[in-house]
């Protein structure tokens, strides 16, 4: 039988430590909507989204009320649009029309983001992929809740450097297209290596072609809960530290599992995976950086940060894997700078640099995330940063991502405001050493050797 202290612990997590289920994301395959006629394609997409996800928001709210656990976001991911629109789109403008359709349909069902305005070009770029990528700046500036991602590399295929170079330019153009709003378009655009098919988190969510017609993926959260649990083991050895993180991750994941099961049953949509990521928000007490500080660092970004993050990431997985049999997505600690109060503080004081963040991405999911850089950063430098991050993912067989925001008109020392969960961020300095000669080469970086690991 449940006892008083267990009930109190759970409710304290929810009420005081920001425990929530970060997102229920419904993946919807749009492959059966494909049509050679653009107008008909858009109609079919709208109809399928409305039919599939019409009850998503209400069901999420019902579950939230019954269990007393906040479910912050209800979202949709769709089949990469470069595939869906390939037969109907003759120009970038045609793809933008699909983006508008997605935006309208997503608002109609009341979700707060829709992901999948995507292209998978890890080995080569089709004509449709190119049109979609070129349409991204306009699509993200003319829509509100559509998110875009481009997978430019993988461990199996290597890195498509033509796509990397293109994305350097596309990121800057997207920033320019939304310059009046601190280049917020770039907050909805991710460049991936080894992108997972079942990620429920934005902006990188899309519904992979290997997935079922519809599927529910759940993203949990809870940095505040981990931080609070670690407060009770200050000064203890690493074994105690790891045990505490594991137990807490177990509890957090169980809540996600419960919500997943309920939502799946009520919506009649199969459950896919739980993503075990610790996702921070800009709210006080919901920071991954604060967990690292609780472990004993003065500020995130200092020496010891990579080790502390590696430990955290691994223990979260170990605890979470025990709590759910179907774990997927990105699963790890997120370190988005603008969405994490502790990271923002570390960046402001100079303790956290772009280079240190790059090192941190070697041991956690996902990558260089929500980092504001000077608007004057050259395209080739952005491409160089992307290439570095993709190389880390390719060699280490992990997902890495880049979500950089070159804030047009702002320089180091200023701040960008994105609002809501996207937060705010100081503009971080970027190396001025040029890499044009490297990124302007044509072709691909070959897939790495899978032996001789050193």
């Amino acid at each position, binding site marked *: 039988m*449940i006892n008083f202290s267990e*009930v109190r612990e*759970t409710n304290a997590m929810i009420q005081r430590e920001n425990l929530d289920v970060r997102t229920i994301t419904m993946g919807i395959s749009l492959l059966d909507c494909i049509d050679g006629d653009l107008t008909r394609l858009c109609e079919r997409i709208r109809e399928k989204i409305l039919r599939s996800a019409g009850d998503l928001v209400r069901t999420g709210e019902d579950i939230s*009320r019954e*269990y*007393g656990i906040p479910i912050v976001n209800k979202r949709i991911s769709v089949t990469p649009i470069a595939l869906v629109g390939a037969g109907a789109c003759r120009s970038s403008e045609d793809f933008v029309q699909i983006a508008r359709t997605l935006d309208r349909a997503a608002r109609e069902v009341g979700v707060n983001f829709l992901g999948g305005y995507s292209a998978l070009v890890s080995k080569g770029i089709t004509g449709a992929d190119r049109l979609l990528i070129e349409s991204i700046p306009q699509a993200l500036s003319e829509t509100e809740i559509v998110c875009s991602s481009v997978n430019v590399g993988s461990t199996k295929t290597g890195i498509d450097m033509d796509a990397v170079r293109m994305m350097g330019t596309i990121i800057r153009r997207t920033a320019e297209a939304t310059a009046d709003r601190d280049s917020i378009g770039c907050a909805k655009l991710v460049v991936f290596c080894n992108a997972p098919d079942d990620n429920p988190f934005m902006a990188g969510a899309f519904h992979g072609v290997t997935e079922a017609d519809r599927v529910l993926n759940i993203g949990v959260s809870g940095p505040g809960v981990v931080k609070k649990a670690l407060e009770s083991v200050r000064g203890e050895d690493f074994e105690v530290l790891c045990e505490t993180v594991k137990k807490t991750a177990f*509890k957090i994941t*169980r809540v996600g*599992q*419960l919500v997943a099961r309920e939502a799946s049953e009520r919506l009649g949509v199969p459950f896919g995976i739980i993503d075990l990521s610790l996702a921070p928000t800009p709210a006080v007490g919901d920071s991954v950086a604060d967990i690292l500080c609780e472990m004993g660092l003065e500020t995130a970004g200092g020496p010891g940060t990579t080790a502390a993050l590696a430990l955290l990431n691994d223990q979260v997985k170990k605890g979470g894997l025990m709590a759910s049999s179907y774990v997927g997505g990105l699963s790890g600690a997120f370190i988005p700078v603008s969405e994490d109060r502790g990271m923002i503080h570390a960046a402001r004081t100079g303790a956290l640099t772009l280079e240190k963040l790059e090192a941190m991405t070697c041991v956690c999911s996902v990558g260089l995330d929500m980092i504001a850089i000077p608007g004057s950063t050259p395209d080739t430098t952005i491409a160089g940063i992307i290439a570095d991050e993709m190389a880390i993912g390719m060699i280490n067989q992990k997902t890495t991502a880049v979500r950089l925001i070159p804030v047009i008109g702002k320089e180091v020392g200023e701040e960008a405001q994105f609002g809501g969960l996207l937060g705010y961020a100081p503009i971080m300095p970027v190396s001025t050493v040029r890499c044009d000669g490297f990124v302007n080469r044509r072709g691909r970086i070959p897939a790495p050797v899978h032996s001789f690991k050193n």
Partner: protein
Amino acid sequence: MRRAIITVVGRDTIGIIAGVCTYLAERHINILDISQTIVDGYFNMMMIVDITQLQIPFGEMAEELDRIGQEKIGVQIRCQREEIFDLMHRV
């Protein structure tokens, strides 16, 4: 049996248990277990209840309890389905 956990927290006053229990009886909710303490004048109660015979949607009942707590008694009342606690604290 469908079970739920009701927690009541707030400044102690006369009639908290009476107020909550009267509502539960009206809604055909059977009380299975109650534990209650008072710490520094603060009332803390947990109830395990059977909601099998509840006639209205669970969310509506939880909202009514919340309203009774805030408007009539001056305490915070939460009602949650039991599974969340069970799953979190049992392997």
